[in-house]
């Protein structure tokens, strides 16, 4: 049973990496985990969720403003991207970068569309990670 869970977990992780949901940063986090902090990765990811929720909310609000403050949007997204890089959320980061491009181009529609993509990637990652941690525990 135990082994099976382990194998499942390993498989899930492999797949997350292969599909680009996560990158090596995630592996590095796992390497940091030790006896002193046995749930380190999960704790970090939880922090990430909290932060992300805040960013997403703020970006949403900022997008609703008219006229749109692109500088602020860009700044928020920059922070969100930085945060995402901390756990290796590769796909989310890519969406963030695209968003920033639309921001620079002052393309509000483009921003809004991409933002849907950002949220989607984030939600997917979150779900997969939760499943992974379930298996891992």
């Amino acid at each position: 049973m135990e082994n099976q869970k382990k194998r499942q977990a390993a498989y899930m992780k492999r797949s997350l990496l292969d599909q680009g949901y996560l990158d090596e940063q995630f592996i590095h986090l796992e390497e940091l985990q030790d006896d002193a902090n046995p749930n380190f990765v999960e704790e970090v990811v939880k922090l990430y969720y909290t932060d992300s929720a805040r960013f997403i909310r703020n970006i949403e609000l900022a997008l609703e403003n008219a006229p749109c403050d692109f500088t602020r949007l860009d700044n928020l997204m920059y922070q969100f991207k930085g945060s995402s890089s901390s756990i290796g959320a590769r796909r989310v980061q890519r969406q963030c970068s695209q968003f920033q491009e639309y921001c620079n181009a002052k393309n509000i529609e483009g921003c809004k569309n991409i933002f849907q993509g950002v949220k989607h990637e984030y939600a997917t990652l979150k779900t997969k990670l939760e499943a992974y941690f379930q298996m891992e525990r």
Partner: protein
Amino acid sequence: MMENSKTIAGFSSPRTDIFPAGLRVLVVDDDPTWLKILEKMLKKCSYEVTTCGLAREALYLLRERKDGFDIVISDVNMPDMDGFKLLEHVGLEMDLPVIMMSVDGETSRVMKGVQHGACDYLLKPIRMKELRNIWQHVLRKKMQEARDVGNHELDQYDEMWMLNGVERLSGKKRKDFENKHDEKEMSDSRCVDSSSMKKARVVWTVDLHQKFVKAVNQIGFDKVGPKKILDLMGIPWLTRENVASHLQKYRLYLTRLQKEDEVKASFCGMKHPDVSCKETSSSLSLQNPVDVCTDVTKDKYSGDSGDKAIVQNGKSNIYESKVKGVVLMPVTEPRSVVGDNFDSQVAGSKIGLTESFGLVNTDVESANLPIPYCSTGEAPQPQYKQDFKPHFQSANGSSHQPLPVVSHQIPVDRTQATCFLNHIPSREERNRHPDAENKPSFFKSKCGVVGNFSPIESTVNLFQPVSQQQRNVHILEQMPSTTWSARSCNVVNGPQSSPGNLSLRSGSMVASVGEDVCGASIQGECFLANNGLRNIEQFDYNDPQPISGVPTCLYDTLRFDYEYPIDSLEGIVMDQGLFIV
């Protein structure tokens, strides 16, 4: 060689034989996820980690724990302060190596980091191996400092540690070290040897800095170079490197002032300190004196009666005289603020607080500003720039107002930057030494207000901080060297109005400054205004204790070498204008 530091001088430290383990790192990042990760990574390197999420908090910690850290790692993008600015502050005040981090690796940003003094620029995501190597920066810096001949503040502990580290790394022998530690008499220049890793720093005292500035002005700011300056200064123990690094900081400082100059919001009047907190606000401009300490009671000041603390009234002309760049003199009154007859002077004079070093001449209005301190004495005119005309006139000692010594805790509004005011000199002292030979006094208090300083003959120069070796501000009686670190500060503003009004007696000047705290160097006067001074509780006029414990971090206006405890009110009068960038 298994020699252990313990055997050397009976001194033991857990770190000495395990360098670089035990390296004391301060990590600053507003992203909690990254902060947690970095903390873990650094711990894995066996470093001693302290984390904080705000730049101001970082500065506070750095100031509170003098010599408590070996290196700072900070993200470029901080919400409360630009990372580059923090970098500058740390470099100037504490002279610690700073590593910048960012998700963005754009060359221009990296260049900016390096130009501001970052010793490295890491891109996120950061890898373990990058962090493992950061001790090299610490070592390098120590080596550079060891080469700086000057005041040697040997920190036994550090020396042991570094020496140990150096020894381990380079095989240098300890004999030099041993010799020097014979009597645990560490403060001497025996260790000029760079391998000794002494933590010898040049303390850019007011006096020294003045000479520096004089030399710069003489040569001509544009044609200046470290060698020329060194030659002109004629200080035997000073090296070209010392001058070069000081010059670099000075330039950076001036550049920044100029830039900030552009940004001024109204800086006059009492504004809410928050306003002045903006990074963009010019630092020295007297801004928002407003919230400076509130309840500073004048009663505390036993000064000559009639002398009024001057609180920088927001509406005072100080603001008008805010000068761009270096401007020192107040528009109206060319007299030094601090000077005899403070009252009248004050009334008439304005503080020309400028972002750069400025003489602060505050209009004296009755103010309940706690005066952080007063310094009196002749203030030689610092010449910061060609266009700077210092108008300090040494008071001819007519009435030496005692410098209010203020040292206390000024509770500051947490949101505000606070400045440390440590204050000092006593009136008698000043009276006794009306001219020269005034020791710099400075005070350290946390308040957003700048104190005004005693009318005595000094003029207050507000400067942008920092000398490299900013240390604790102590009031020292005979402290020959003081280092200033003035940062933008909110000058104390109008009396009564807001908490944190400083009431300065006898010519204290309050300058409110924008973001940076200004250090005024008045002979013997210091003050700091930090934006957001609030609630300066009370300045105990004659209470020389150093201020501590202000919750928000602020800048020390003046720092004295650590080892000089403040014993008395006699403060150190700053001989000359200061400024330290």
